């Protein structure tokens, strides 16, 4: 082994770097080669800044600036479209710069600021372009960059918009209930003695007609002529109580029952710790039960269905077993925004309590640094590991909506965030902000994007309401190239001879770690003169577990501040981390149905069984035909394979045993001597029943039958048969042979027998 290579291997194994062979990377400002084009983010168009939309119904709660600009540009037509496009893209870039520089405000204010900075006052063409494009942007709101504060701002903003919708629906319902209950009380009053008093009548008609009306006479008349149907006192009391409960609710800020101003001050539902949220929750639970019960009773009252005998006892018990999520759905959701850095043991336990409560509490758990090592040292949980572990546990609870994502991906996860916020149970949003990158000179956006790209912090969502199984609930596809261990991208560069070269590079955990200055001791730059063929890509070095002294050393392609290519070897510590990270990624892949081991085992087994069956079938075929030969072979001789392939021949005996089809309901045989009516065909015409309502009567469906044939004469039977519109009365034979005129009657009856 040459010197240089020996030094490389030694560094790989021990992290010891001989200064004459290898350079330290500190101060070199190196970045993974794939980052070369992301040096100045403000020049790129990407998902940030985001506009947190003020919210009209039907609008998304957040939209990226570039998305809005694209939509506005696609709506442009007419002359100078290309010019306008260039102007607007310049403006977009200017806004991005302002926001990255810390400027805050709404899209409108920043648009104007940027337009002024570009010189709109003096450039007519620019002004015209911007004016035209601005018309295509219908939405406004605060802008936010992808910084440390963004995840909480975004989630809280989405949560607020969900709560606003809830408040509107809730308010509408309460207003309806209030109005209807008040109307019930008023109608009760109108029919009471006080309601019918001359005084009240005068007041309701108005003073303009004082001379024309005698209200005392009117009162006397109403009091004597109209029924007095005042409510029982218990009902009046119940309705007043309902009105009290509805009017004093504090869950949403609503105008009070009288419509004057605001009611009692509404509760706060936003918290920065689990402990505080739990205290509030417990305190308010009895009020939730009381209000939900009042709403249910009010609905019954309004519908005129409240029955004291039946409902009093039922409502006594209301909420005794807790409230189910559907009953809680109209109430506000709690939102807790917290940071893993502050997650002490007690808070951790409370978080788990909240997540397993089934209650509509939404939690943002933000992690700013996923690489900080725990105090116990290597092999113990970093804060990144901790948040990943909480997300996994939450998924294990089955009824928690779980979303894990880097901040950079949150804009893309907008709809999934909303789904989690609207979900009827608890939701956990675990977000890596990327803020730790600042110490290494990288933006939060780039750091968080790299964490996701390198599988250090994969994005996924678990939605228990999406279906009964993992396939429908779990979503992993937001990650780049999900079926690979590491995403691979083409990297183009120019070599020393100015020839352009394209090479596929995997972005691994080690690339992500290499961005962080705290890991620089695990890296060493190889001077160009010492480059040799035994340096291999990290992903390649991870593919096989090698024993003994390594011959090849893992190496990263990096670029320096001038974008010139550098090769950096890494030590084994980082490779071990990468292996661990890959294993965790594999577990997620399995959950997401990618390279699922159960599915693959099953597939292999089925394939093998199928192959064996095919094989046996081919072999047993001559035998099978022998069985089919004229001489019937005993059943035992039938080859097992064909018995398995063909369903056992039990069909015949089974069908023999099957119950015979239900016999068609035979019409009861009527003796031609008996009188009868084909009742189901009776059209209720009243002919027969008017003739003799003792003899003919209606059944429960108001169709005629012969109730008592003795109750009338044969003559009546014949007459009924003749007048029956649908000729379904059959007179039969006369019962009294002495009835006069029988001969003629029998002749007439013949037609109806």
């Amino acid at each position: 082994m040459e010197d240089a290579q020996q030094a490389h291997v030694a560094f790989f194994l021990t992290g010891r770097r001989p200064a004459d062979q290898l350079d330290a990377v500190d101060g070199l400002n190196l970045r993974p080669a794939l980052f070369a084009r992301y040096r100045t983010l403000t020049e790129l168009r990407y998902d940030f800044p985001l506009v947190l939309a003020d919210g009209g119904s039907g609008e998304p709660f957040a939209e990226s600036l570039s998305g809005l600009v694209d939509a506005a540009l696609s709506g442009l037509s007419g002359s100078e479209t290309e010019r306008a496009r260039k102007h607007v893209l310049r403006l977009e870039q200017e806004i991005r710069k302002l926001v990255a520089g810390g400027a805050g405000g709404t899209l409108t204010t920043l648009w104007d600021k940027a337009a002024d900075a570009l010189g709109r006052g003096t450039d007519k063409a620019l002004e015209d372009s911007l004016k035209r494009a601005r018309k295509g942007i219908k939405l406004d709101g605060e802008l936010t960059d992808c910084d440390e504060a963004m995840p909480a701002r975004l989630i809280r903003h989405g949560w607020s918009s969900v709560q606003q919708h809830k408040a509107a629906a809730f308010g509408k319902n309460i207003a309806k209930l209030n109005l209807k209950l008040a109307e019930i009380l008023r109608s009760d009053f109108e029919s009471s003695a006080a309601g019918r008093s001359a005084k009240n009548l005068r007041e309701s008609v108005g003073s303009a007609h004082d001379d024309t009306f005698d209200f005392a006479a009117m009162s006397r008349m109403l009091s004597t002529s109209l029924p007095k149907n005042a409510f029982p006192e218990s009902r009046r009391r119940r309705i007043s109580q309902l009105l009290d409960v509805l009017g004093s609710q504090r869950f949403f800020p609503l105008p009070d029952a009288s419509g004057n101003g605001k009611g009692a001050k509404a509760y706060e539902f936003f918290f920065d710790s689990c402990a505080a949220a739990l205290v509030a929750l417990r305190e308010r639970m009895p009020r939730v039960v009381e209000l939900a019960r009042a709403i249910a009773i009010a609905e019954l009252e309004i519908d005129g269905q409240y029955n004291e005998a039946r409902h009093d006892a039922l409502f006594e018990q209301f909420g005794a077993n807790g409230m189910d999520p559907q009953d809680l759905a109209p109430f506000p959701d709690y939102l807790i925004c917290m940071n893993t850095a502050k997650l002490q043991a007690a808070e951790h336990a409370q978080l788990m309590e909240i997540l397993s409560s089934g209650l509509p509490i939404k939690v943002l758990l933000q992690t700013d640094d996923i690489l900080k090592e725990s105090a116990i040292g290597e092999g113990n949980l970093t804060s990144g590991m901790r948040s990943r572990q909480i997300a996994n546990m939450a998924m294990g609870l089955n009824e928690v909506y779980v979303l894990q994502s880097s901040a950079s991906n949150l804009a893309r996860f907008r709809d999934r965030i909303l789904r989690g916020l609207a979900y009827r149970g608890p939701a956990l949003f675990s977000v890596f902000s990327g803020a730790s990158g600042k110490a290494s000179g990288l933006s939060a956006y780039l750091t968080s994007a790299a964490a996701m790209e390198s599988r250090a912090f994969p994005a996924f969502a678990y939605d228990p309401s999406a279906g009964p199984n993992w396939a429908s609930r779990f979503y992993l596809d937001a990650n780049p190239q999900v079926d690979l261990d590491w995403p691979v991208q083409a990297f183009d560069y120019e070599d020393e001879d100015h020839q352009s070269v394209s090479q596929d590079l995997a972005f691994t955990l080690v690339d992500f770690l290499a961005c962080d200055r705290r890991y620089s001791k695990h890296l060493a730059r190889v001077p160009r003169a010492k480059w040799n063929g035994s340096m291999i890509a990290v992903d390649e070095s991870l593919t096989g577990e090698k024993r003994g002294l390594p011959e090849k050393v893992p190496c990263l392609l990096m670029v320096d501040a001038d974008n010139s290519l550098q090769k950096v070897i890494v030590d084994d510590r980082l490779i071990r981390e990468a292996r661990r990270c890959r294993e965790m990624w594999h577990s997620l892949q399995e959950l997401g149905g990618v390279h699922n081991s159960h599915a693959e085992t099953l597939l292999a087994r089925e394939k093998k069984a199928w192959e064996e069956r095919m094989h046996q079938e081919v072999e047993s075929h001559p035998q099978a035909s022998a069985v089919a030969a004229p001489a019937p072979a005993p059943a035992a001789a039938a080859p097992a394979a064909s018995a398995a392939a063909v369903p056992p021949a039990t069909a015949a005996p089974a069908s023999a045993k099957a119950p015979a089809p239900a016999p068609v309901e035979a019409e009861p045989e009527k003796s031609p001597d008996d009188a009868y009516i084909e009742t189901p065909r009776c059209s209720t015409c009243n002919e027969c029943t008017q003739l003799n309502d003792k003899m003919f009567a209606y059944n429960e469906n108001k169709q005629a039958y012969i109730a008592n044939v003795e109750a009338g004469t044969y003559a009546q039977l014949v007459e009924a048969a003749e007048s029956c519109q649908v000729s379904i009365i059959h007179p039969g034979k006369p019962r009294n042979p002495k009835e006069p005129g029988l001969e003629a009657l029998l002749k007439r009856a013949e037609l109806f027998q």
Partner: protein
Amino acid sequence: MNMMSATDCLLQMCDEQFDLEDYQSGVPRWCTGCGDNAILTAVQRLCRDEGLRPEKTVFVSGIGCSSRFPHYMKTYGFHGIHGRALPVAEGVKMSRPDLNVFVNTGDGDCCSIGAAHWIHALRYNMNITVFLHDNQIYGLTKKQASPTSPIGTKSNTTPRGSYLEALNPLTVTLGVQNVSFVAQVVDWVPEVLFDVVKAAFHHRGLSFVRIVQRCPEWLPKSLDPWLHDPQRLLFLNHEKGLQASEGLSRLYKNQIIHDPSDLSRARDIASSIDPIPVGILYRNPEVPCYEDLRNSGMLRTTAMAKSGLNAEFDKFTVWPEAEQAQAA
């Protein structure tokens, strides 16, 4: 997943049981043998079987023998103006969409004086169940030809027989935009009458049921050929419509399969006068209801009702001169 919450269950635990008598009111003044009696029975059975709460149910009618229907139902009712049952019913439905609204109308009421309302009610497609009691004559006013009287019908207004081909209410209905449910039945087959009434009630939208109804008083024999020959009824069967029972099929053997979503075939079938098609001709549950399209979701508070009324009254109010002077 659409499970019921505990509260929903609680709210539904108040279903009451009703009997036919709970819907009967007074003794019908119709002639003995009148087909209206059969319709009344079928509708009362529907109310009982569906447990329709009388205080949540309204029957609206115009003028005619058939329009006396609401008097015989122990529910809310509105015996209105000749030809105007439909607009009244639409008003009821518009302000109280929670009510079950039915309309009973005669061939004179609906197809003659009320024809314009009929066409527009179909297009508005509000969730109302309409029964056209078609006895092919003005019954109440003692025998004048109606638009549906068969050509040659002798009546007090057409003593030498009517001159025009009868109007076919089914083809008219099926020609109107937004039509969503059309069925036909005869009053003398109670089982099918009930099934059709029930299907019409369950359709969301305007369900139009033409009932061929006998008037033994003024046209005693005119429907006899159909009454006495089961072959002259054509039963429309379909898994998505009605299926004739076995008992029925023994008597009425003339049956075809007809898919009620097929509008052009429904129009073909509707044109047949003999045999009389019986069953559901057309059904389209997708047509939107006007009351849904126009639902603003606004609460009708007393203040709102008052200001609306005042605005209307103000159009007609004449103030005494003295007050006018004062106001000025």
